[in-house]
């Protein structure tokens, strides 16, 4: 029974196409978030609930919040408030809402029909992933922490240089 997989995959592809064809960055972000949520449903359907949760929390949560902050920082002023009023018209949010409603219906259906995901051979839960992650992949975890530290230092350096530049001029 792969109907959940097929519908979620179709929603992901449709949302990604809509994201690519938008002209306004905020509209594209709405569709990108729906696309990531659809991929999370696909993960759950494949028997990977831990990765599905992380996809929602880290991708659709943290990374998209970064994008939203940058888009908000980039267009301040009168033009932004006009765009804000434009966002409240139904034509903008009706598309992402319909796609997200499809995903919500799938989610409710999965919850009511029991715990096992329909398409997977077996459920690989957080315990197995954690055992592998801190067992044979321990060096990878250390490297990922170094990479994140590098990203932190790099982002801080770029922001710091720009601020000292502004104070001089």
């Amino acid at each position, binding site marked *: 029974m792969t109907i959940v997989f097929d519908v979620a995959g179709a929603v992901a592809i449709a949302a*990604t196409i809509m994201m*690519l064809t938008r002209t306004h*960055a905020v509209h594209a972000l709405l569709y990108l978030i729906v696309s990531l949520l659809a991929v999370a449903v696909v993960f759950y359907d494949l028997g990977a609930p831990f*990765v599905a949760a992380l996809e929602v929390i880290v991708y659709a949560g943290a*990374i998209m919040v970064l994008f939203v902050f940058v888009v908000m920082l*980039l267009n301040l002023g009168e033009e932004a408030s006009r765009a804000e009023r434009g966002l409240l018209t139904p034509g903008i949010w009706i598309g992402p809402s319909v796609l997200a409603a499809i995903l919500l219906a799938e989610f409710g259906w999965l919850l009511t029909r029991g715990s096992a995901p329909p398409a997977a051979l077996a459920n690989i839960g957080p315990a197995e992933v954690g055992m592998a992650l801190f067992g044979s992949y321990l060096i990878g975890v250390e490297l990922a922490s170094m990479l994140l530290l590098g*990203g932190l230092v790099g*982002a801080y350096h770029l922001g710091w240089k*720009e601020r000292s530049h502004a104070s001089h001029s």
Partner: protein
Amino acid sequence: MLPIREGFALAGILFALGIIGVLARRNIIFVLMSIEVMLNAAGLAFVVAGARWQQPDGQVVFLFILAMAAAEVSVGLALVLELYHQYKSLDTDAISRMRG
């Protein structure tokens, strides 16, 4: 029944859409979002393969891709802010005049 062929097809389609976005769009925010789509599609392929062999390794690699995407997007968006302050534009063609 595990939809392994459909899973890889979905990953391939999403990756191709990301490539189209990187090549076709000129707004650098859209380019970064397309890169996110491509990374996500690569992670989807890993998870599908992990589900096929019922091993957690695919999900572990997806976690590494997640950490890499977070680091990439933080540095990338800091560069976008810097670019906007220097050129007053988000057009990627504006950076082509940059000479080191």
